[in-house]
């Protein structure tokens, strides 16, 4: 599965189109950045409610393939700009983190 495949989930909207060909092989949920940094696996789809620019640094440094911002939060302007520079995809959803994770599971992740 790649980031592009996740676009088939109709509850997910694209906020930043990064490298859509990156593989997605697992998921991670978390809002504490150092925990995500320490424990998220590479090739994760990462569900969070954080929307400030540091999520891009975490995703890039950790090797997360896509960020999914839940609960209807929108990424800050800074976040969008930096994600474009770093080629990281950001999706948003109105769903809560648990429901968003369920979608990923239903989708076969």
């Amino acid at each position, binding site marked *: 599965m790649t980031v592009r495949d996740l676009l088939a989930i109709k509850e997910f909207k694209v906020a930043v189109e990064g490298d859509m060909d990156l593989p997605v092989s697992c998921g991670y949920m978390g809002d*504490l950045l150092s925990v995500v940094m320490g424990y998220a696996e590479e090739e994760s789809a990462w569900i969070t409610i954080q929307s400030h620019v540091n999520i891009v640094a975490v995703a890039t440094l950790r090797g997360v393939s896509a960020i999914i911002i839940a609960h209807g939060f929108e990424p800050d302007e*800074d976040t969008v700009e930096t994600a474009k520079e770093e080629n990281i995809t950001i999706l948003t959803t109105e769903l809560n983190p648990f429901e968003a994770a369920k979608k990923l599971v239903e989708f076969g992740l």
Partner: protein
Amino acid sequence: MTFDYIVDPTEPERAGRASTKFKGVLKELGVSPKVIRALSIAMYEGEINMVIHANGGNIHCEVDADKIRVIMKDSGPGIPELDKAMKPGWSTASTQARELGFGAGMGLPNIKKWSDNLVVETEVGVGTTLTMEFNLT
């Protein structure tokens, strides 16, 4: 080769710039992706700590043939109980820092985990210096 960065304490949301820059440098130098990832994670955690716990500081990076050394120095409050601070889950992060998703008490443990060698020198009221090393071979 050496590279120096100044960490600006005024914008915690933007911390991580030095790590991102140095990561780009290492890529250009052809350092292995594995080492780059370990180093960037550790350096990022150190950089965030300089911003949210100290008052910014300086980072000095030395790239040698066999290892990379990253020295992160601040003149912040120092760490009174270093053994506790090194344990996962121990944090004195402010409410403001916690709202940004910092303060899990995982930064120093992450640095320890991802570096090949870590020395923490800290003195209350004087500051903190982290020296981390990453083997290239």
